[in-house]
């Protein structure tokens, strides 16, 4: 009560402003439809914040948002997608300190180690920003065929991709699974790591201010199994990335995903001890691409056997 007095005196103590962590769905920040939350603690068990405990209906709403955003995002030029991904990196750079703190708390890292993780995550956005307009040259191109045709293959995005984000690496791992999915024009419904969802929920705030259209990335927090199961069975989801699912769950999800022939990216044996700082390669980009091949007549061949 004596605080009252001191308030008028020297440096007034401010009431702390607690952040209410919310989901990121369709470009907005809703609470869980169920109204539930769960306690998130740091690595030592100290309470950090309450995170929304998403229900299957939140997952359903996220799929609707992702589907709605898909046409526009896939239709943007690869170059523009690259610019937007680069913009995400720029925005993250500006909020680096916040993410360093959140990653340090979530994973129990020292400040310098957390900073290294955040830097690597920012670089990861830049890496994938560069890939957006190059991947089609790598996996597409002209095919030699025995006939008077041009035969051209181009990669196209698969559609709505459900992503089970890694449980251990709350930020670098998260970015490493989201960025390749959206770089090629897919839209994503992401289930943040169950124990440490806060960096993921904060990432939503960055994405919302990076010219990324609403609905391209949707981030849910909660019990991984509860949200992933309806997503794996959802007939309007085209692919699922099982990186953050344990062996039992991954098997169950794979069975559910077979109903509408989803593309499934299985957790690789190496993923379990994955070093997220290593060169990511292109396999996460190509996992969610479909190949469209066009046959086009060359026109009549002259006597020389060529139309030119």
């Amino acid at each position: 009560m004596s605080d009252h007095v001191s308030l008028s005196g020297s440096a007034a103590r401010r009431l702390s402003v607690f952040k209410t962590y919310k989901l990121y769905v369709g470009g907005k920040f809703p609470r869980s439809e169920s109204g539930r939350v769960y306690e998130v603690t740091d690595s030592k068990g100290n309470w950090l914040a309450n995170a929304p405990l998403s229900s299957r209906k939140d997952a359903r709403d996220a799929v609707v948002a992702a589907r709605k955003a898909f046409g526009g995002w896939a239709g943007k030029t690869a170059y523009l997608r690259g610019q937007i991904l680069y913009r995400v990196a720029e925005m993250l750079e500006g909020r680096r300190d916040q993410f360093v703190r959140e990653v340090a708390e979530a994973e129990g890292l020292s400040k310098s180690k957390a900073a290294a993780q955040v830097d690597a995550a920012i670089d990861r956005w830049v890496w994938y920003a560069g890939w957006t307009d190059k991947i089609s040259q790598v996996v597409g191109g002209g095919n030699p065929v025995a006939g008077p045709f041009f035969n051209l293959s181009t990669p196209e995005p698969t559609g709505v991709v459900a992503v089970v984000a890694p449980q251990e690496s709350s930020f670098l791992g998260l970015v490493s699974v989201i960025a390749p999915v959206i770089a090629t024009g897919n839209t994503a419904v992401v289930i943040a790591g169950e124990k440490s969802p806060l960096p993921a929920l904060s990432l939503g705030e960055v994405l919302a201010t990076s010219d990324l259209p609403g609905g391209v990335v949707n981030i849910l927090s909660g019990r991984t199994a509860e949200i992933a199961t309806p997503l794996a069975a959802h007939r309007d989801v085209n692919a699922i990335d099982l990186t953050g699912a344990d062996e039992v769950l991954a098997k169950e999800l794979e069975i559910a995903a077979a109903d509408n022939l989803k593309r499934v990216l299985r957790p690789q044996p190496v993923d379990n001890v994955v070093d997220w700082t290593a060169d990511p390669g292109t396999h996460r980009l190509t996992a969610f691409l479909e190949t469209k091949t066009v046959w086009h007549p060359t026109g009549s061949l002259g006597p020389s056997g060529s139309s030119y």
Partner: protein
Amino acid sequence: MGVYSCYARRYAPLVTMPITAPASPADSAGGPPGTTGPAVGPAHALADVTASDSALRRFLHGLPGVDAVGLEARAASLGTRSIKTTAKAYAIDLAISMIDLTTLEGADTPGKVRALGAKAVHPDPTDRTTPQVAAVCVYPDMVATAKEAVAGSGVKVASVATAFPAGRAPLGVKLADVREAVAAGADEIDMVIDRGAFLSGRYLKVYDEIVAVKEACGTDARLKVIFETGELATYDNIRRASWIGMLAGADFIKTSTGKVAVNATPANTLLMLEAVRDFRAATGVQVGVKPAGGIRTSKDAIKFLVLVNETAGEDWLDNHWFRFGASSLLNDLLMQRQKLATGRYSGPDYVTVD
């Protein structure tokens, strides 16, 4: 029972209600608005109120005013009912059976109407237990095509007429429009009222036009009267229009054309449901209600069904007395139905694109 209408009923005897000749013995009965004792035939009890323009105006302006806040609060609170599991399955099937599957575009082709007819008969070809919709709703020149498409199925053909959607045409043209549609085989006619006449206070003109159209419908075609509630400006006007329509012999009163910014809302539908309830109490004649336009999700449709059950009562929970004017609603209902059947969320790839 609506909050405001309890109110209206309590105070009905106090309000000047010049609905009958002064000598009517039922005036002191104190029943719901318009009550004049036991019904003696369709709208007969209220026959006097349409005797002249001034009598009709006195009657309409004597109807209790609508408590807009109470009405919207009531509609919103009924929208929060939780309808789950078996009740939801029942509601979805009922809603499907109440749909007037509608295509009213300048670009309608016979092919599109035939496709719509096929969908009306078998909404979900992968599940033949899905009920049929109530009717297909088309422009008059497509009636014959639609009739052919649903032949032998029990699905009705409704046709908009009377210079839909504006209704700005001479009466002769409107009546010819109706007769053509009926001659082509339409089972139901959806007419629009003359909003210009209504808003300028010429109620009897509106009334006479509905009577003339009803006559042109003959005995076979049921008449739905569209008020275009989005253009009527106030809830009081919607109540007055409802009573004009019912007095003139409408078989259905319908909210809107779907062609303006504000279409069916829970509040204006609730108001119209109260009107048909009160009209039946007064005259013994049951009139149907059709909200149209802007109802796109199963959740919305189920909210409307709750309104019907809680306001008009179970008698209206049948596609003879309640309809949804909609097109995209059907796909959402089908996806929900598939979800209930399989336990998996369905997607737009599993229903037809209209």
